[in-house]
């Protein structure tokens, strides 16, 4: 039964994508709601069953077992990511509905919906995939759709950002594909679990690892390859920015962790991770400093993505030091990524709500805005709490685990960078809030923020705090099929 549920999670958004291509406006909204809630329900069930049975699940497709056919692979990590994606995606769907408003009822913007559902399907497919080539195909769908969505405003800036993004994403995929080809050549299989069993360090293996990691580093916008991300994420329409920063980068971060701890696990115990750690550290500092000097809220949030993704790599050098610490890093990074996805989406949606009412997002002109739209800034602040990594949030737990691992292994430089990153994050969040919280003389009656926008933003902003308070459940789910067992 779970096998059927798992397929449902991929198929329903695809069917929704096809149906929304043909529906009128009323019908489309019905389809969106039904599809969104169905996927949400199915992922809840999947997460529940996985957590309950504590078994990983291999789902054979086309009736052919692993080396010949493709398998889907469901463990706690996949289940948790599916659930997070579903919650975020449903919120974005409702947000986008209100955000585009009448503009999306007819004309070219109606094609946003089929694109959007296709991305959702591909995201689910990616989190479930147990095959390195299948990962490539799903990643490609996500990226091409993301490119099209970035170009959606059809302005010069957005088109240039989209083209930049396309070139770099294409290059990243090619690098990844080359790595996959070399893996297949030397091991004769594409299945992740089989590859993990066969892997041993030799020339082709290292080459494959380098190519695959370069490809994924480009897509996660790691430091020297990050330049495409801020313009693409900031110039897209808000629901798309949220999707990109919240989910699309999460997908490539997930791939790095998934492949890094299975197929490339032997390499993770070599000093090569140091290089990734250094780049991650630079990304944290560079991204944070740039976020601090931006003039637009969306640009702040976009640069913050560069910084936050740096943490994923920052903690990797600790893995060398031993299994217990590696487990801490694994849990810490994953929890961090998941909370970041929620918080970042919330931050972008807050910025979008602001644009919807103020028609701009220039920080300098936002003075006093918080007294007109308190809910929006509260949501932004709560998301900010997670981005900084302050205590009640899930981001804090993730960072805390990483920090502990770093301290235990005596990597003081990494500790310093992590703390500096958090302080800088506090800087860029409070800068925006500080200006907004000033009292202004402007007594014009403000346009109230639409309820649907505020509500979805609020839900996503509260989520990381909940993840911080009730962390038991997600951690026990993550432990299902984890390479390290339960958290020590």
């Amino acid at each position, binding site marked *: 039964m779970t*096998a*059927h549920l798992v*397929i449902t999670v991929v*198929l329903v958004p*695809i069917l929704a994508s*096809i149906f929304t*291509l*043909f529906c009128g406006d009323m019908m489309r909204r019905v389809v969106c709601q039904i599809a969104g809630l169905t996927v949400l329900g199915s992922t809840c069930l999947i997460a529940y069953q996985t957590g309950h049975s504590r078994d990983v699940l291999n*789902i*054979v*497709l*086309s*009736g*052919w077992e692993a*080396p*010949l*056919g*493709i398998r889907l692979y469901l463990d706690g990590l996949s289940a948790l990511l599916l659930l997070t994606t579903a919650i975020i995606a449903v919120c974005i769907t409702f947000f986008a509905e209100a955000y585009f408003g009448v503009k999306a009822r007819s*004309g*070219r*913007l109606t*094609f*946003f919906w*089929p*694109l959007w559902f*296709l991305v959702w*399907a*591909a995201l689910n*497919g990616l989190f479930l995939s147990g095959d390195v*080539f*299948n990962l490539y*195909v799903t990643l*490609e769908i996500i990226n*091409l*759709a993301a490119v*099209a*969505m970035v*170009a*959606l405003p*059809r302005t010069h800036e957005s088109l*240039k950002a989209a083209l*930049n993004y396309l070139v770099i994403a294409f290059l990243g995929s090619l690098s990844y594909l080359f790595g996959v080809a*070399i893996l*297949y*050549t*030397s091991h*004769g299989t594409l299945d992740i679990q089989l590859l993990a069993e066969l892997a041993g360090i*030799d*020339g*082709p293996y*290292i*080459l*494959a690892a*380098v190519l695959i990691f*370069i490809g994924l580093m480009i897509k996660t916008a790691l430091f*020297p*390859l990050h*330049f*495409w991300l801020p*313009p693409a994420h900031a110039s897209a329409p808000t629901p798309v920015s949220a999707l990109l920063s919240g989910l699309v980068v999460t997908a490539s971060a997930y791939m790095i962790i998934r492949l890094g701890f299975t197929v490339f696990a032997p390499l993770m115990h070599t000093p090569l991770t140091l290089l990734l750690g250094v780049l991650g550290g630079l990304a944290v500092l560079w991204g944070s400093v740039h976020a601090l000097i931006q003039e637009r809220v969306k640009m702040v949030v976009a640069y913050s993505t560069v910084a936050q993704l740096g943490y994923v790599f920052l903690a990797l050098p600790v893995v060398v030091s031993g299994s217990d610490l590696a487990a801490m890093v694994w849990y810490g990074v994953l929890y961090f990524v998941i909370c970041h996805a929620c918080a970042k989406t919330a931050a972008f949606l807050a910025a979008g709500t602001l644009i919807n009412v103020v028609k701009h997002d220039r920080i300098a002109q936002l003075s006093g805005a918080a007294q007109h739209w308190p809910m929006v800034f509260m949501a932004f602040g709560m998301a900010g709490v997670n981005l900084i990594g302050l205590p009640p949030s899930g981001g804090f737990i993730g960072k805390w685990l990483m920090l502990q691992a770093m301290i235990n292994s005596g990597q003081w430089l990494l500790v310093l960078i992590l703390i500096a990153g958090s302080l800088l994050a506090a800087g860029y969040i409070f800068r925006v809030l500080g200006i907004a919280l000033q009292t202004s003389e402007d007594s014009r009656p403000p346009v109230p923020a639409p309820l649907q926008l505020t509500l979805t933003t609020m839900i996503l902003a509260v989520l990381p705090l909940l993840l911080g308070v009730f962390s038991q459940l997600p951690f026990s789910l993550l432990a299902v099929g984890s390479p390290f067992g339960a958290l020590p």
Partner: protein
Amino acid sequence: MAAATPSDILLCLLILSLALGVLGDANPFRGVIIFIVFGLVMALSWTRLDAPDLALAEAALGAGVIGVLFLVALRKQGEKDVSLATQRLRLNSVTIISGLLLIVFIVYLGALGVFSAWKTPGKGLVEPVYESLHLTGVSNPVTAVILNYRAYDTFLEIGVLYLVMLSVFALQPDEKAKFTSTEQYDRMLRSYARGIVPFMVLAAGYLLWAGAFRPGGAFQAGAMLGGAGILLHLSRPAMLLDMRGLVARLSLVAGFFSFCILGILAMLYGFDFLQWPSHLAKHAILTVETASTLSIGLTLTGLYASVERKLISPAIFYSGEEDNP
């Protein structure tokens, strides 16, 4: 292992020098022409390496349709666009340096990797593929791989094509394409199209059918159909439906949708997703292939029509606004 013959070496040198031409030629128009030749020579090397399916796909899709798209893109480059063509993307020096470092790194590891990969040739999946071939419903192993063993990948791949068409829709201006008068279009070309298009459709049908037991299949047939569509569009654009119309949209999703339906059907009957029971496999594969061919052909035509929008080819021969590239 077979030793390389002089003709192999010649072919490889030809490929490399053509690639150099594509990247190095100062005139972008010539670059594109060389790119088309490059595609055809690549097709030759696919044939040499016993991959005729790829040769067909490369010639039809890589060199054919994509080459034509490139040409159109260049043709649209009018006076004001020259600056844009040489406009730098936002590539800072950091990136370039890191790119160079990257290349050095890759060359070093590549020398290591290629040579050791050659010393220990992988086992591959040749044997399992051929062992179960009689259960797949087709006798062409490549078709078996893409439509049976790894049908899920192909399903998503058709999704990519569908996605590209969606993206084009999402970026197209809302007003419908207008065609002033059919008189502008060349009568010769039209009568030629009238004669040749049926042949092309016939050839597409043959490629589709032959895919089961010899080189060919949905992608090759789809590219052929796309070629026919482009020719029709060139000779008589008014004939072409707006791709956003209902019928066109239905045909565009036909391939993707048929995969969904057959996959669901398989699950309802207690099989795995996209599993074809061996006695029905041939029919299932033929069904999705036919639908996909239609979708691919129409997608390619639609892509061409949208890239070309406003400038409909032979008309520009007489318009006088275009410069010789």
